[in-house]
């Protein structure tokens, strides 16, 4: 895949990629933009190479997830060194912008799920992936993805009922 094709693909999946980056960055909009920018540079400069083993979106989402995890580690290290972070302890702009009460309730309870469960549910419900594709994106087996999906769904429904 040449550069022009890659750019075209990235542009086609941009909206979904941003949504996934938001999920991977705990809805921190600024960090999601940083992560996505890093991912685009990685992909276009050939540091992350699409080998065609999975669908382009599945591969791209896996790159976004890994990059976000690296950003999180960096953030954690900076916190250890007592460097103040921009969004620490502040309600994100993203959350303030959510108008729908149902969506806002969902955002409130999502952080209470285990990360894997949250990721599988986001991929399946938000990005309309199959459980198999979600598993590929997260680098886990179909069986594990199914277990996270079922448990996550039950827990999320219970949490929403509580709230």
């Amino acid at each position, binding site marked *: 895949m040449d550069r022009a094709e890659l750019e075209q693909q990235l542009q086609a999946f941009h909206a979904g990629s*941003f949504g996934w980056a938001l999920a991977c960055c705990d809805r921190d909009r600024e960090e999601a933009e940083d992560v996505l*920018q890093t991912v685009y540079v990685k992909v276009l400069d050939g540091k992350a190479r699409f080998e065609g083993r999975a669908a382009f979106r599945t591969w791209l989402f896996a790159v976004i997830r890994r990059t976000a995890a690296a950003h999180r580690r960096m953030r954690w290290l900076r916190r250890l060194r007592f460097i103040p972070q921009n969004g620490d302890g502040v309600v994100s702009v993203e959350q303030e912008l959510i108008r729908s009460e149902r*969506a806002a309730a969902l955002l409130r309870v999502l952080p209470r799920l285990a990360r894997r469960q949250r990721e599988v549910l986001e991929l399946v*419900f938000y990005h309309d992936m199959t459980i198999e594709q979600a598993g590929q994106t997260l680098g886990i087996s179909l069986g594990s993805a199914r277990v996270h999906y079922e448990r996550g769904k039950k827990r999320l429904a219970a949490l*929403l009922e509580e709230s």
Partner: protein
Amino acid sequence: MTDDLRARFAELRDEESRTIPKFAVVAPASRRPYWRRPAAAFAFLLLVIVIASIHPRRKPTFTPDDRAAARAIATWHPPTDFLLRMPSTGVSR
């Protein structure tokens, strides 16, 4: 339960899709052509080769006067050289 969750996530997606930054805004740095770095390295290498080939490698040239001066310096002995000679000089040879 599944339908309700799907509907909630769809609402969240619709809400968030209103604030998605444009692709060009997120990816400006990535628009740098990927061939630029290797091209710069190649251009630098070419420049070094061109400079090295153009720059004349001059061999040192000596005139007969230079050679005579060098010979004179090599054979010159200071006038006080005899002071360094000792009676035992040559005995141990």
